[in-house]
């Protein structure tokens, strides 16, 4: 075996002694994960606040004088970009990727701990640059999260001076951070697994994070490339993307560039980005569902293949975001075809989640509630995706609230529900404390029902033809007054859901201080992270000896076994059976 120091040698770890090296410049994957997670949740709250401001404007136009059209576009842009990149990507991969990969594969840390630390600090730097754009003259960019040129860098768009430059710089730094982290995750999964942990014994969480990381490594360069070229267009006056333009009555120096080229580059990143967020969610939710249903995940191998196939397909569907861009119509045909194909492995996953629940011994814990909620919202968002994947249906709906409803259900609400499922599920391991269950359930029902109250009516608004991206609807004949009443209701629901997220924040902070001490394995789960000698696990994770893995991560409710779960690290001969049940055997002979 190739010698990997930190994978099997506890003495190779540089034990931190001071507060600073332990909690600030830490190289421990668990601390880095929590740093990543805290920053991501913080910016997520900023984005949540921005969405509340947007909703106030939409629900009660002409009421809030402090929101002018420019502000509104800045809120939309920053809300979108923060949620997609700085919250979801960072929390799933930087947060859960960092925390779970070494623990679930049985390693002491990431393969390159120093690089891991750098990754976090670059991420923090990118967040600081992004937040700084709120305070420069002109404010942050208001170009929409897709940053389409030419308008993104032209006068007249809010934040076209410094805002857009800071946004592009922040994205570039984020991509550097992600690449450092991503190389680490991929290498760690491939190289640092403990003895017996074959690729097909990995929990699906690791598979989801692993494939999503590979997607990220190959998709983010597209954003990087377009960010660099747009920065040149903005600062030096090149014409990569800028056509000849008459702006505010004067001819600009640019000529001949192709805005559609930017759109292709952007969505070559943008579509895989959807799966960079979705695949870790798929993985995490599979583990949560299986554990709390006390049943092995249905069709493990198919689940892994589906993750891989979705990952591969996600690179050839990007132009379905561009049906209205004026590209060659035959492109639309091709991309509609691939888009609908990708529904097949995705549907396999949904069926397998439902079949995992079938005849399971379901424990309706807080994480399980969120995981089941995810199946609903994801199915819902996925189905409207099949509508929009067709060119002819997309064209009339593309610029309406139907699209807003679709992508919020499928990649807003759904991944966030998984994030909550995962945060509640792994909180006892991360902190050693138990959260308050009642508050957790209140949080779930408020979030789950509340988000439906927000997004279901938006589908209807979309069918009415209410356009998205508008600051105010004004007087338009085809939009009835009832649409405005509905908008006000949506705003009320959104504010309610927004406020209820603080129940979660309160629960976390309160439980950290006053929560009951948690059992090392409160959910009676099989995967390795629950079998650590210390709870929460300490630097180095495993004490003297690394665990040895004898089986896959889904050995629940085995007939005849005394407990309804058999951890991955228990040798077959050590499994306790009920009296008269006979011996626990290697099942390879039975098949």
């Amino acid at each position, binding site marked *: *075996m*190739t010698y*990997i120091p930190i994978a099997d040698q506890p003495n190779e770890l540089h034990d931190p002694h001071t507060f600073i090296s332990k909690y600030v410049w830490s190289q421990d994957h668990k601390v880095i994960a929590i740093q990543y997670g805290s920053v991501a949740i913080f910016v997520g709250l900023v984005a949540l606040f921005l969405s509340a401001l947007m909703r106030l404007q939409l629900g009660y136009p002409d009421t809030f004088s402090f929101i002018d059209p420019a502000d509104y576009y800045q809120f939309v842009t920053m809300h979108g970009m923060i949620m997609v990149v700085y919250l979801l990507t960072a929390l799933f991969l930087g947060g859960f990727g960092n925390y779970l990969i070494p623990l679930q594969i049985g390693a002491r840390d990431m*393969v*390159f701990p120093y690089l891991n630390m750098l990754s976090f600090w670059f991420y923090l730097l990118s967040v600081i640059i992004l937040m700084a754009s709120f305070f420069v003259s002109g404010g942050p960019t208001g170009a929409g999260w897709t940053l389409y040129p030419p308008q993104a860098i032209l006068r007249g768009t809010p934040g076209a001076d410094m805002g857009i430059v800071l946004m592009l710089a922040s994205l570039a730094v984020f991509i550097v951070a992600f*690449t450092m982290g991503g*190389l*680490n995750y*991929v*290498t*760690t999964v*491939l*190289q640092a*697994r403990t*003895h*017996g942990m*074959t*690729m*097909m*014994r990995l929990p699906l969480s690791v598979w989801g994070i692993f494939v999503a990381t590979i997607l990220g*490594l*190959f998709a983010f*360069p*597209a954003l*990087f*490339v377009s960010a*660099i*070229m747009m920065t*040149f267009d903005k600062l*030096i006056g*090149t*014409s*990569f993307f800028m056509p000849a333009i008459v702006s505010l009555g004067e001819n600009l*120096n640019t*000529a*001949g*560039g*192709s805005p559609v080229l930017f759109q*292709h*580059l952007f969505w*070559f990143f943008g579509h895989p980005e959807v799966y960079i967020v979705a695949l870790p969610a798929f993985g995490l939710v599979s583990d949560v569902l299986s554990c709390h249903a006390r049943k*092995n995940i249905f069709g*493990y*191998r198919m689940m*892994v*293949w589906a993750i*891989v196939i979705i990952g591969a397909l996600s690179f050839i569907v990007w132009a379905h975001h561009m049906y209205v861009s004026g590209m060659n119509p035959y492109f639309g045909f091709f991309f509609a075809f691939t888009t609908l194909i990708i529904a097949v492995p995705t549907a396999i996953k949904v069926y397998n989640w439902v079949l995992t629940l079938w005849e399971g011994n379901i424990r309706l814990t807080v994480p399980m509630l969120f995981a089941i909620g995810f199946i609903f919202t994801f199915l819902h968002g996925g189905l409207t995706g099949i509508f929009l994947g067709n060119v002819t249906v997309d064209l009339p709906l593309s610029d309406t609230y139907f699209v807003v409803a679709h992508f919020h259900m499928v990649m807003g609400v759904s991944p966030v529900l998984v994030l909550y499922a995962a945060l509640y599920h792994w909180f006892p391991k991360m902190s050693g404390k138990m959260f308050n269950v009642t508050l957790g359930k209140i949080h779930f029902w408020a979030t789950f029902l509340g988000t439906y109250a927000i997004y279901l009516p938006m589908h209807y608004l979309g069918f009415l033809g209410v356009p998205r991206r508008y600051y105010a609807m004004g007087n338009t004949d085809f939009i009835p007054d009832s649409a405005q009443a509905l908008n006000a209701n949506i705003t009320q629901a959104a504010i309610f859901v927004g406020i209820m997220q603080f129940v979660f924040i309160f629960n976390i902070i309160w439980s950290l201080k006053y929560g009951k001490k948690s059992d090392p394995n409160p959910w009676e789960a099989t995967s390795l992270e629950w079998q650590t000698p210390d709870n929460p696990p300490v630097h180095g994770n495993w004490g003297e000896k690394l665990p*040895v*893995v*004898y*089986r*896959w991560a*889904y050995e629940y409710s085995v007939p005849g076994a005394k407990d309804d779960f058999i951890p991955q690290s228990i040798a*077959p001969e050590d499994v306790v059976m009920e009296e008269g049940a006979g011996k626990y*055997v*290697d*099942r*390879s002979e*039975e*098949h």
Partner: protein
Amino acid sequence: MNPFRFLLEKSWQQQTVSGIPEGGEFTTSPYKVALLFFLAVVTVMFGLFITAYFVRMELDDWRPMPESPLLWLNTALLFLSSITLQWTHNVLKKEHFKKFKIGLVLGALLTVGFVYGQVTVWGQMQGEGYFLYNNPANAFFYVLTGIHAIHILGGLFVWTKTIVKYWSGAELEDLKLSTELCALYWHFLLLVWLVLFALISYT
């Protein structure tokens, strides 16, 4: 053998560790794996730049830049540095430390020569009035060569770490790996440069 065979394992059947190699299915050094992934990422990045180049080239305001003969000299320098580093790796395997030192330093000098040459070309071009913002062809030329040069500088950073390793008396295996990866990285950047050079020359 099918490299994706591991995806066929029926992991719900077997309950043993016997027969599973302790390091898993992949036995390459993690540093090499990380580097290969990084090279793949860089390939994607340049690939996208080149795609954008071809798309942009078709539009009618494209005016190709004149080619500087100095670029041929630079290409030769980079080519030699790549070969030198390979040679350095080979002599290190035979534990000729003196040759190793010469090779390592020579490789770096040739590389610095290449970067210096590129900077000179930029100066020449600007002196002749081909600025970044005049034409998309110029813009692509500066951006592509610039990003390539930045990657070369990154390589020199790793090269510095290798020589520090040698000074501080690192283990031979460690040193061999570093040198091997340096050589690999240089070959890769040479390849990228040849593609870029061909692109710039023939379009």
